[in-house]
């Protein structure tokens, strides 16, 4: 019962925040909404007995990505300028209806499908030890290769981000200098 209660509590919190993310007129508020969503999801992970993921979620997502976004927002826009351009009403309505339809389709299909019974094994793979073992195991079923690939990807992204921002920064400086 308490689990279910917590679930509903978190779910409502997350959905409300998510709604806030996609509707808020102020970009900064949106970001705060995203923050709330991510915290909620981290809670969900706890409910699902995935403590490590939950921690990762908080550290990387909230501590990394959201902060990055906030910085970007601060760089780009004047936060005090509250109103952002919104899509026209008809578009919002249309897309909202389509999204609802899509949701009903998804939910319907999920509910109508009979998932098999859970395996009886005790869920301990959410533990750090298990995940670490899986991530670094080169044997079949291990994720050593994807792990390495993702590290490459991160480096590439890092370098890419620096390059994109800097190359333009040069131009920007030049422009500013002229201006």
């Amino acid at each position, binding site marked *: 019962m308490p689990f279910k209660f917590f679930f509903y509590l978190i779910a409502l919190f997350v959905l409300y925040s998510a709604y806030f993310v*996609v509707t808020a007129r102020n970009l900064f508020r*949106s970001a705060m909404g995203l923050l709330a969503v991510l915290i909620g999801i981290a809670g969900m992970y706890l409910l699902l007995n995935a403590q490590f993921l939950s921690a990762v979620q908080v550290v990387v997502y909230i501590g990394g990505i959201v902060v990055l976004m906030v910085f970007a927002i601060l760089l780009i826009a004047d936060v005090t300028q509250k109103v952002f351009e919104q*899509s026209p009403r008809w578009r919002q309505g249309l897309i909202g209806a389509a999204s609802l339809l899509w949701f009903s389709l998804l939910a319907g299909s999920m509910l109508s499908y009979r998932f098999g019974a859970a395996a009886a094994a005790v869920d301990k793979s959410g533990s750090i030890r298990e995940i670490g073992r899986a991530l670094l195991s080169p044997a079949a079923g291990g994720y050593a290769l994807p792990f390495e690939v993702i590290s490459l990807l991160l480096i590439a992204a890092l370098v890419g981000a620096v390059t994109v921002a800097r190359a333009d920064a040069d131009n920007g400086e030049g422009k500013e200098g002229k201006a």
Partner: protein
Amino acid sequence: MNGPTLEHYLVFSALLFCIGLYGMLTRRNLIAMLMSVELVLNAAALNFVAFHHFLFPGDSGGAVFPIFIIAVAAAEAAVALAIFIALFRHQQHLDVQQSDSLKG
């Protein structure tokens, strides 16, 4: 068990996904779109964990995958934001519905 079942999580993530989708299609600011994308990604990651928890607790795949998702999301955010900043410097706004220089 009287805790939330798999279906609870699935329906929840479906709803989150659709909100994200709605956001992606209606927000005009690129950063806001990116945030909507994060919602969608989170919904998907949650699904992984839920399936892992309820159906395949023995297999570590469901637990590992969200980590990859988070990593990819981080990379994506880094690059995307760098591009946004560059773009903003270039055209002084981030309105997707005004940007159509790739028009055919």
